[in-house]
């Protein structure tokens, strides 16, 4: 497969975002330009508070850039759309809706008839291994289950682009590993364009085709590491997470990326 020939799915051109707080405005994102190709899995890592989420929200249409523009398929993004599904860090499930109803939510607005919606919901309940919990409410689920519902809700809606904001941040280590493997598997079977934020370097390398390292305050792109294209770690998505993180190639990459982030943290005195 020739990666270079894929069309651009998302692109940001000279995007700057201002952030208002207590009557002063900060520059949260500073002149960022990047493109994400169709079917590509891009991961952004960077120190906390570096504007990763703000930058992603411009693609979601939830934040308007102060300068520059964001595009999907060459068309300017001016507001939220079901074509760009967002998995929020804090799940954002509707607490008065059951697991099934949460997953079904977006399908109604796509005009999909009821029987077909039921089928899709059933399929995704199976995919996230929550059979038997269809009629449970979010408060009856564990953190990992909630997060899987949030992911299924977005997947079921079949958006062209998935924006995932530290989706596993609230999970314990074991659940997180299972979720990472699940997502990796789902990505292989469902092939979508994904932009993924994390502060875990391991997660970034395991999941990403490319890893984008952002600088701290204001957020800029420090470096982009093309993992898949340069075949730095072959076939990792078919492997178990624990096996991947012990590969020699993985450890070298991790050291490189950590070095970049650490330099950033020390340089800007954030700790």
């Amino acid at each position, binding site marked *: 497969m020739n990666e270079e020939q894929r069309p651009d799915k998302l692109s940001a051109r000279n995007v700057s975002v201002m952030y208002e707080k207590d009557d002063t405005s900060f520059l949260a994102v500073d002149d960022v330009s990047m493109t994400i190709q169709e079917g590509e899995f891009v991961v952004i890592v960077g120190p906390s508070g570096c504007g990763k989420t703000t930058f992603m929200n411009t693609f979601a249409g939830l934040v308007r850039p102060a300068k520059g523009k964001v595009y999907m398929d060459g068309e300017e993004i001016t507001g939220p759309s079901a074509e760009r*599904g967002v998995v*929020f860090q804090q799940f954002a499930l*509707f607490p008065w809706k059951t697991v099934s109803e949460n997953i079904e939510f977006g399908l109604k*607005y796509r005009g999909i008839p009821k029987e077909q919606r039921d089928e899709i919901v059933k399929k995704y309940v199976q995919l996230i291994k929550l059979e038997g919990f269809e009629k449970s409410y979010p*408060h009856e689920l564990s953190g990992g289950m909630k997060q899987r519902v949030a992911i299924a809700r*977005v997947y079921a809606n079949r958006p062209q682009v998935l924006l995932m904001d530290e989706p596993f941040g609230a999970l314990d280590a074991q659940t997180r590993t299972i979720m990472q493997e699940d997502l990796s598997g789902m990505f292989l079977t469902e092939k979508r364009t994904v932009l993924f934020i994390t502060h875990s370097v391991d997660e970034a390398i395991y999941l990403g085709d490319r890893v984008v390292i952002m600088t701290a305050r204001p957020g800029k792109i420090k470096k982009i590491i093309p993992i898949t294209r340069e075949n730095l770690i072959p076939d990792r998505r078919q492997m178990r997470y624990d096996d991947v993180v012990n590969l020699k190639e993985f450890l070298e990459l991790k050291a490189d990326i950590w070095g970049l982030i650490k330099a950033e943290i020390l340089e800007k005195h954030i700790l």
Partner: protein
Amino acid sequence: MSRSAENFWDKVYREKTVLSLSSVLGFLALWHLATDILGLMPAIVLPSPEKVFFTIYEKILAPVGEEKLFGHIGVSLVRILVGVGIALGLAIPLGILMGWYEDLDSMASPIIEVLRPIPPIAWIPLAILWFGIGLGSKVFIIAIGVFFPTLINTYIGVKFVDPLLIKAAQTLGAKDKDILWEVVVPASVPLIVAGVRIGVGLGMMCLVAAELVAASTGLGYLIMLGGDDLKPELSITGMILIGILGLLADRVILRFERRVIYWKKE
């Protein structure tokens, strides 16, 4: 839950019931002691509990003024139900719309902010002028009392829905109208119900106030009559019945609350 645990909680519950019952009985005994036995208060000022219960028993089917005791209860009940119904029918939709549409909020807020602090009983003279001394004026006063707490709570409920839920709905393809009915309204239900509960409590006060001033029926009238005729047992009868009515109303709302916000963590 295991059997022994069940028994344990049964026992605690029984003990609680025993404690509650004995405190009520103790209260009645003290009351009895102060009036009948020690005569600390003359019967014309504070009748004994037996006398009050006998009055209730005697008057259930015997006329007091224009109505039997049951009739007075019924009249008060109708007034409160109609008043609450009208107030909720207006306050909840208005609160939802004000919370959602900022223009409406800017238009309605100044008027509401001035009207809200006026105690409902201050409306009594106008209510009588406008609606006479029949059902209308009482319902109006009660509705005023229920209206504002319900309106404010609904408004706040809608205004402060977790913005993350709205963002989630937007990115799933819901439009503004869908978001209002599918996300904002359900999310505000807990606060709306809390407002109704406060409102109904205030409505009970307004009921009594309205009946004290201008009525020849109802529990408030009974309380007033007891004072006028120097029959404190009548006043106490009215007060006890109002208390029971208020308690029942609160229980009904609590039940309803548990049913509609099943999805909240205890």
